[in-house]
């Protein structure tokens, strides 16, 4: 009878202690906020079609990362209280998968796939558009300066600035080196604004251009030979990496992927790089970046600052691209002038910002197709922001 009583005490004790360990007993307002953010991202992805390949993994990752279980603070490998569940707990699956984010392994592998799916023809046929891709990187350094002014440390400011490069993997790569604790906030911010490019850019473009400028017609791009396409990744890699060696991990992989594609003799490797390989990395990077936004580490004034700076960086980047075209046009002969409506495309949200150019262009002249021309600065922006990332790492890492 005594034993039986002990048994029921034991039973209820354990049941209650289990209940005490459920997430219901441990959640805070912060977790609620984060879960709502995760749900919003998933909603935007499904209902609005915004960047679903990234917002769904990130959004669901946020949900997973914000299940508020007891003992999340026990993160060391030999801590007996470490239940190996949370992303910061060593020995947990999420922690193993997060390795690729924390140490910057995934972004270069994504660049490999991007290289294998990018066609640089538009850029090769009109290489001066490369400079527009350079100009749009002003957003990065604008955000860097603004972040310094807001009191972020130089390392953090560099990691935040890179949001202006409009490149998720680049942002994650730089942040993992300069400010690993901000990776989550920076990645979520970068992807959110990339999704909002069609909302952010048009007013800036209209503000900065005259009606006459918007009607500029550009020469059709010339045809690009196979040899040029093969030489581009080789020369592109050598030149950019000679100038900015710190960009090797990103640009080396980008141009390697592109050579796999353009050589045509390694088609099956290019297909895998831009297919299942990038898919696997996309799943893992999105999920773990999302899960790293644990309410306790994520919901800070810094995160709010990062979101504000992100918006600012995209506006400055658009400004930089459009204004550069206007100034550049002063030096170009009539007939060679560039329509400043493709300046925004230097913000390398491929192909979103190029589509914005096309849409705005058609609003003023229904026969003036800018898409083809805008692809040039668009892919140049990918190169430009990787170079900028290299510069930041050279000075700040």
């Amino acid at each position, binding site marked *: 009878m005594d034993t039986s009583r002990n048994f029921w005490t034991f039973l209820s004790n354990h049941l209650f202690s289990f209940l005490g360990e459920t997430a219901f007993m441990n959640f805070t307002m912060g977790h609620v906020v984060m879960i709502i953010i995760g749900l919003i991202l998933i909603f935007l992805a499904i209902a609005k079609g915004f960047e679903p390949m990234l917002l769904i993994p990130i959004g669901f990752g946020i949900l997973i990362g914000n299940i508020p279980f007891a003992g999340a603070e026990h993160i060391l490998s030999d801590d007996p209280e470490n239940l190996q569940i949370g992303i910061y707990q060593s020995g947990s699956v999420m922690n193993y998968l997060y390795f690729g984010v924390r140490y910057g392994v995934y972004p270069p592998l994504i660049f490999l796939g991007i290289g294998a799916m990018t066609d640089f023809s538009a850029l090769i046929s009109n290489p001066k558009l490369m400079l527009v891709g350079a100009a749009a990187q002003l957003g990065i350094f604008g955000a860097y300066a603004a*972040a310094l002014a807001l009191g972020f440390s130089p390392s953090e*400011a560099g990691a935040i600035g890179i949001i202006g490069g409009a490149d998720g993997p680049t942002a994650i790569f730089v942040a993992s080196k300069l400010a690993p604790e901000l990776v989550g906030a920076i990645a979520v911010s970068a992807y959110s604004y990339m999704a909002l490019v069609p909302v952010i850019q048009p007013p800036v473009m209209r503000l900065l251009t005259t009606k006459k400028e918007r009607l500029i017609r550009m020469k059709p791009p*010339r045809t690009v030979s196979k040899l040029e396409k093969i030489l581009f990744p080789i020369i592109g890699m050598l030149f*950019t990496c000679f*100038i900015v060696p710190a960009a090797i991990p990103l640009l080396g992989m980008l141009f390697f992927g592109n050579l796999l594609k353009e050589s045509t003799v390694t088609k099956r490797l290019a297909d895998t790089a831009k297919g299942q390989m990038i898919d696997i990395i996309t799943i893992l990077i999105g999920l773990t970046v999302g899960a790293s936004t644990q309410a306790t580490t994520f919901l800070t004034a810094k995160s709010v600052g990062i979101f504000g700076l992100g918006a600012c960086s995209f506006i400055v980047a658009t400004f930089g691209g459009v204004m550069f075209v206007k100034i550049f046009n002063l030096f170009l002969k009539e007939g060679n002038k560039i329509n400043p409506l493709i300046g925004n495309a230097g913000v390398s949200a491929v192909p979103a910002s190029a589509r914005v150019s096309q849409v705005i262009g058609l609003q003023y002249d229904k026969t003036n197709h800018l898409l083809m021309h805008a692809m040039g600065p668009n892919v140049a922006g990918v190169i430009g922001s990787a170079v900028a990332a290299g510069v930041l790492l050279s000075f700040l890492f």
Partner: protein
Amino acid sequence: MLSTLLIVEAGERVAGKSAEEFGKMDPTGIAMAMIAMSIVFSALIFLYFTFKYIAKLYNIDLKKRFRKSRPDIEHTEAHEEISGETLAAISLALNLYHQQMQGLEDAVITFKNAAKSYSPWSSKIYGLRKSPNN
């Protein structure tokens, strides 16, 4: 006991020092912007001139040599010589076409999902292939 990868908290690179120094000398970020933008521009200007030059060189010289040695490739290129205007038009046409295709594709997928062997009825890879009486 099995071996394991030792997870430690030590051994990380001591970063951030050069960043601090840089920040001290350039508290506004203007120097960074100027240096960095000039580097970004020089890298891309470099590429710009190279491909401007290559395009000319190629038109004059390499193209012919290349044509001799690899007639098959040139043949392919001949097909590619379509004007940019046409390309832009085609690109839009393809865009529209995709939207239609997307619809068709969805229909096809719906059917495939119903029909292919790897959905509900055998959804787990370690499902049995045969049951004795079935």
